[in-house]
């Protein structure tokens, strides 16, 4: 259903220990709300991303439950605290069972 789903992540590449870093994520997805109708008056079935998570070295940063009221191409900005070098793991869960993943490395020194 959802085609050409491309996750994009912007996170700093380096930081000092204990820094709070700002992370921005965007994923291209139609987020069909299930409220709209097509030209023949039939309801277009809901097809959204229903959950987004971000972990840093296995520790949870944020876990968001999305409802149809989230806009097309869901965008999130949030903060993470980094104490050591590691990898951010981003995961999006689609209604159709698809899972989209992206990672970002950060060097902390």
């Amino acid at each position: 259903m959802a085609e050409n789903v491309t996750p994009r992540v912007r996170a700093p590449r380096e930081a000092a220990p204990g820094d709070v870093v700002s992370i921005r994520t965007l994923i291209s997805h139609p987020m069909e709300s299930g409220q709209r109708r097509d030209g023949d008056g039939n309801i277009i079935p809901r097809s959204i991303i229903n959950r987004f998570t971000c972990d840093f070295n296995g520790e949870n940063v944020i876990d968001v439950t999305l409802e149809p009221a989230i806009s097309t191409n869901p965008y999130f900005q949030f903060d993470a605290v980094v104490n050591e070098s590691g990898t951010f793991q981003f995961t999006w869960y689609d209604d159709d069972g698809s899972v989209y993943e992206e990672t970002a490395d950060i060097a902390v020194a």
Partner: protein
Amino acid sequence: MTATRRQVLNTGLAAAAVFLGLPRLASAQDVDAAIAEFTGGAEAAEEGVTLIAPEIAENGNTVPIEIDAPGAEAIMVLAAGNPNPDVATFNFGPAAGSQMASTRIRLAGEQDVVAIGRFPDGSFKSARAHVRVTIGGCGG
């Protein structure tokens, strides 16, 4: 049986109230139910949570909002005037740098957006912002 003028007026008023009032009431009940489910019926103080939303949103399809609740473990966002008031729930983990997040939401029309934060001590705090929408975002 002949109806008096007063009876006729009352019936008309009741019918109008049912016709105009029910959709809004149902939505208000939905919002209350969603809040009660999140808070377990606890009172939410109107402080400690910041909800930044535009006063006027030109396009209801993408309304930028920002929530900030220092110390909260979760924040739920509701749009009181949408067909389905749920918007999103943010749960913050141990690696979160702050209890702040921003995203873009859909709003069907002019309405209140509500953010409720759940704090580790079991208390709840809320914030409310009124947004006017020029073009609704529910494909109507």
